[in-house]
């Protein structure tokens, strides 16, 4: 193939995702960023324009009021912190549940492995929303769990399960577990079993061998899985809205309330920008690790 066509083809292939990101990520981001630097007003659109005309002269109108407002009301700071806490705890739970599952799948016989992986992916065949609604039916006061416990005589009063932190954790861990298991499985499946034999041969008991050999080698998988759970969990909207507390909102809910109920687009945009900044750090971390993984040529 002539060289010219080859490089054109390469540019085309790289161009499509670039265009995609440009149109659907960078431009919307810039729009949101620009809205966050305006002030609310009763108009269409409901924010001040970027360029105001004073006596026929254009002047740039940038306001930081939306950002400073976020720190005057404790609602925002506490929502951010609560979101980070929920995401962190959920990620840890996913890791503790997902690691043994991924390990078991990676060590299963090939035929069993296919079935197990299928079972991990199977829930995606039903709508996410339906599955979260199903948890309401399980967790509510006269729901399945309370009824069974009452019937068995374990409890005499229904437990308040719904609209608690517990319900949010259940919802997030249940929904995001596959995102933890799959990258962990991909990592663990590549491990050379003779390394564990070598460790045993050198006198390491199975637990020691796991800690010294398997765990450090699966760090990249742990990080990938954790970020895939942590990042969307921070901004999670549906699960806390349906299952969670009403007195403590997560940042996703705050953002949507600002947009649709308060119609304060600048503050809503500022909330979104700040949430993004909170996530940029872990994303950068992830990319650095990925690059290092590539360079080490594993």
């Amino acid at each position, binding site marked *: 193939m002539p060289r010219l066509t080859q490089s054109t083809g390469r540019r085309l292939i790289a161009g499509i995702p670039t265009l995609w990101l440009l149109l659907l990520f960078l431009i919307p981001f810039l729009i949101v960023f620009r809205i966050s630097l305006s002030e609310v007003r009763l108009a269409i659109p409901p924010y001040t324009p970027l360029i105001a005309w004073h006596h026929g002269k254009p002047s740039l109108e940038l306001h930081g009021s939306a950002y400073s407002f976020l720190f005057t009301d404790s609602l925002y700071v506490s929502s951010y912190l609560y979101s980070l806490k929920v995401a962190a705890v959920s990620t840890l739970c996913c890791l503790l549940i997902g690691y043994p599952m991924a390990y078991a799948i990676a060590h299963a016989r090939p035929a069993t492995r296919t079935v197990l992986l299928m079972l991990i992916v199977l829930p995606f065949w039903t709508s996410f929303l339906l599955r979260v609604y199903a948890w309401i039916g399980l967790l509510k006061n006269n729901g399945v769990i309370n009824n069974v416990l009452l019937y068995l005589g374990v409890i005499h009063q229904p437990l308040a399960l719904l609209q608690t932190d517990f319900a949010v954790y259940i919802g997030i861990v249940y929904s995001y577990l596959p995102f933890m298991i799959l990258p962990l499985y991909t990592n663990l499946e590549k491990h050379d079993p003779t*390394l564990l034999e*070598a*460790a*045993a*041969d050198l006198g390491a008991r199975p637990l020691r061998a796991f800690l010294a050999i398997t765990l450090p080698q699966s760090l990249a998988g742990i990080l990938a899985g954790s970020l895939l759970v942590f990042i969307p969990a921070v901004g999670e909207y549906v699960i806390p809205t349906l299952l969670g507390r009403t007195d403590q909102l997560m940042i996703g809910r705050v953002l949507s309330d600002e947009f649709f109920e308060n119609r304060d687009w600048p503050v809503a945009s500022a909330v979104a920008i700040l949430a993004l900044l909170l996530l940029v750090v872990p994303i950068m971390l992830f990319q650095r690790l990925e690059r290092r993984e590539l360079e*080490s040529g594993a």
Partner: protein
Amino acid sequence: MNDMSAIAKTNASAPTDAERDSAYVRIAHVTKKFGDFVAVDEVSLDIRRGEIFCLLGGSGSGKTTLLRMLAGFERPSAGTVYIDGVDMSTIPPYERPVNMMFQSYALFPHMSVEKNVAFGLEQEGQSRDAIQRQVGEILDIVKMNGFAARKPHQLSGGQRQRVALARALVKRPKLLLLDEPLAALDKKLREHTQFELLNIQQRLGVTFIVVTHDQEEAMTLGQRLGVMNHGRIVQVGTPSDIYESPATRFVADFIGSVNMFEGRVSDERTEGVRLECDELGAALRAERTVSCTLGATVWAAIRPEKINISRRPPPSADAGAPENSVRGVVREIAYMGDMSIYLVQLGSGKMVRVTLPNTTRGRERPIAREETVWLSWHGSSPVVLTE
């Protein structure tokens, strides 16, 4: 090369007779099945303290499975392994007085050379100073002390092999298992490493059990060999025992190259047997006593270097019924430098392989292709095999 290893072996620190006689590793009626497949079939074997024992066999012969049972990675389906008199049946790999060098080396990729070698000592809970000293010593022995901080992927194949050896030796095991130790090295490096392994084995007085499919590696490394086929030990002996007196056709064929002639026993006396061979078109006399009945079908194996090739018929051929000599036509000649290989076709169509060392330069008119030649051999050369 064989000469050098012979020298190395005689220099070995001589163990006392009592030590030599004690079986350090005893494999007693060990069988290993994987489902219906019998990988190791009723193997019994004694390996002496301080010797280098080579398990030699093709792929699927069960040699690696046997080694893995010694290391404790596989459990025998039947039978018992004793190491230094202790029954190993219930002892897990991490408690056995054995270390193994893996074919793939199995170095821990996320650890430096130093960390890899120190790993075994750390499991024993030794002090940091003691570990550092021993790691330094063993890296000196394998000449890798300049590479302590490198990661395995920064090393060449030969360097990795040395690190793997150091890691397996640092705990000073009494028994070292080596799975195809030289397979991943190129030819030059292999020969060099072979002699280094012998050297280290003698310095540290370790018992080596080496698994290999490479007969040359087995011959140079092993003081004794065990040839395996289909999960069984076919023959155990010194390299020359096995080469000069193979017990079966499989062994004769597996070790080195051989010319095999099928024949019937036509005469059997104390000084040897006489075979009638249709393939040979002549009688064959072997000066070896074998227990076989008159008229039985047996095989005579003759090594290519034990056959003479000449233009003139040997004196014995003048008599009416020639023995141990036959006429043929040279079909192919391969000049190898140090020797030449001749493929000679007999009247029956059978091809015979003959090797001659090229001892003199520019010999007058060497034997050429399509020339008619006489092949002959001494009565001590053929080995008569009944199975």
